[in-house]
């Protein structure tokens, strides 16, 4: 759950906060190169030199993938109610309020309809910036409704995942979202409607153990961390360091769990190609 270690530089004042740091110049985590913001934007928020993919949010993905002005958001203001009055070092209700203020997002997922190269789809995208992209009741319900829309309109479904797993502060409710989303996907599958799962960095825990791994087609951005248990927990279990590349997208493809590993610049074209092959 690396979101607890996020540093102060990520705390912006207001509005639509992005996962990528503010300011004009950014240091690449991959090669330590200093990159100008404009250059990053032009290059799909990836590093020209080493290919490192910067973490981006739903706003950037919708811009990258959807044809201009086609996105219609669903359930935009659905929010958590802190059903268990959960308190750890902070009240969950305060954590939600603060995160909404900080990110301009209402929860860790946004859903809607749109077009990708003219193909109408239902699209779901997670925001890691919202409590580590954790899945609680709101994420589960919004995805369930998005699937209902795909079923009703017979539209292909695309889910872009970025998550540390289920949200602890909603405890059993969060856990049940795994069952809920998987059950809805079974309905979609039974109806013969395609579902493309796109995994980005990171996709772990309960999200991987439910909808992320249930696609007809699995696409992963290169270098993404994808797994059930986090690397820290596995390291603790086995008592030694993990090999380089373990749980990365390329590794998962090698083990048979990912169909296509892509550079972000090819994501839109790859999805389009697959959709045309499955739906024409």
């Amino acid at each position: 759950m690396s979101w607890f270690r996020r540093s102060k530089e990520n705390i912006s004042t207001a509005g639509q906060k992005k996962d990528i740091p503010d300011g004009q110049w950014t240091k690449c985590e991959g090669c330590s190169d200093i990159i100008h913001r404009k250059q990053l934007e032009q290059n799909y928020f990836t590093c020209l030199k080493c290919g490192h993919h910067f973490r981006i949010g739903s706003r950037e993905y919708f811009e990258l993938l959807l044809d201009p002005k086609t996105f219609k958001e669903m359930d935009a203001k659905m929010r958590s109610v802190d059903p268990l009055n959960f308190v750890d070092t902070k009240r969950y209700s305060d954590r939600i309020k603060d995160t909404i203020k900080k990110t301009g997002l209402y929860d860790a997922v946004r859903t809607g309809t749109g077009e990708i190269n003219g193909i109408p789809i239902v699209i779901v995208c997670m925001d890691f910036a919202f409590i580590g992209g954790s899945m609680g009741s709101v994420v589960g319900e919004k995805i369930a409704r998005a699937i209902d829309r795909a079923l009703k309109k017979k539209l292909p479904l695309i889910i872009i995942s970025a998550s540390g797993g289920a949200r602890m502060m909603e405890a059993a409710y969060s856990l049940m979202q795994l069952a809920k989303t998987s059950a809805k996907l079974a309905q979609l599958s039974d109806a013969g409607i395609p579902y493309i799962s796109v995994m980005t960095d990171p996709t772990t825990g309960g999200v991987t153990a439910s909808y992320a791994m249930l696609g007809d087609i699995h696409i992963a951005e290169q270098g993404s961390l994808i797994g059930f248990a986090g690397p820290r927990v596995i390291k603790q279990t086995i008592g030694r360091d993990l090999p380089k590349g373990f749980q990365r997208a390329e590794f998962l493809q090698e083990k048979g769990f990912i169909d296509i590993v892509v550079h972000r610049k090819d994501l839109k074209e790859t999805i389009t190609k697959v959709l045309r092959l499955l739906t024409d």
Partner: protein
Amino acid sequence: MAKLILDFEKPIIELEQKIEEMRKYEDNLDIAGEIRTLEKKVDQLRDTIFSNLTRWQRVQLARHPDRPYTLDYIHMMLDDFVELHGDRHFGDDKAIVGGFGRLGEDTVLVVGHQKGRDTKSNVYRNFGMPNPEGYRKALRLMQLAAKFRRPIITMLDTPGAYPGMEAEERGQAEAIARNLFEMSHLPVPIIVVIIGEGASGGALGIGVGDRVLMFENAWYSVIAPESCSSILWRSWDYKEQAAEALKLSASDLLEQGIIDRIIPEPPGGAHRNHAAAGETLKKILLEELKVLKKIKPEKLVEKRVEKFCKMGRWEE
């Protein structure tokens, strides 16, 4: 093996031992009345302690090494049980067991997590922590049950899916996800029973069903209290607070609509009287099956999906 006595059990067990001791002299001394008084006292004491258990104390009971496990319930409740092995792809996971047998007049499939009772058997069972092949074995058996129209009973009792390197390589996440997906539309009745520990996706991986029952002293949540403490409090020392915050007891979950029914345990907990726990479970399972068997498969699946879709709280 030395019996584990939990702190809060101590006064009860001391008193019980005293009564035992006195019984030896009952024939020679006129102490029958005194014994009866003490017996009443121990019953009251047990009632007081067990009706005021904290959530963390229940977690400790759920983990008690003398608690009945899946195979214990199977042997107590089923006739003609035949255990089946392997996922037909990789191997036979010892942390999940399953097979067909007769429960009363019905042939049922029982699949459940299996822990060991001592170090050796725990190593053999991987402490009840399944690898992907365990979930895939469970799915294979459940699909067999669906094929032959046999109801399914699953028993949850795991500290979690195994977080090892090979488990990741073989697709732990995919295996669990696949089970949730497939269990949601299997056309036979599925009864889920949380018998001990229900830790996260590793438990839910065999936990989608029409009725979800839970033993009085079992726990079920998204994470174990210790891990929750280490992540949210950044220390292992807040497990009691974490257990409280997670609201992970059977009565909590009934209130949240996550489970349908609490299975009462014998006085002092299921570990004090296996036979009584087995008898209660069997009676309740027969009751539940009788109702579920009357529902048409399509209706069953529709209601099952609806049931899980209702779970969660939000505002808009």
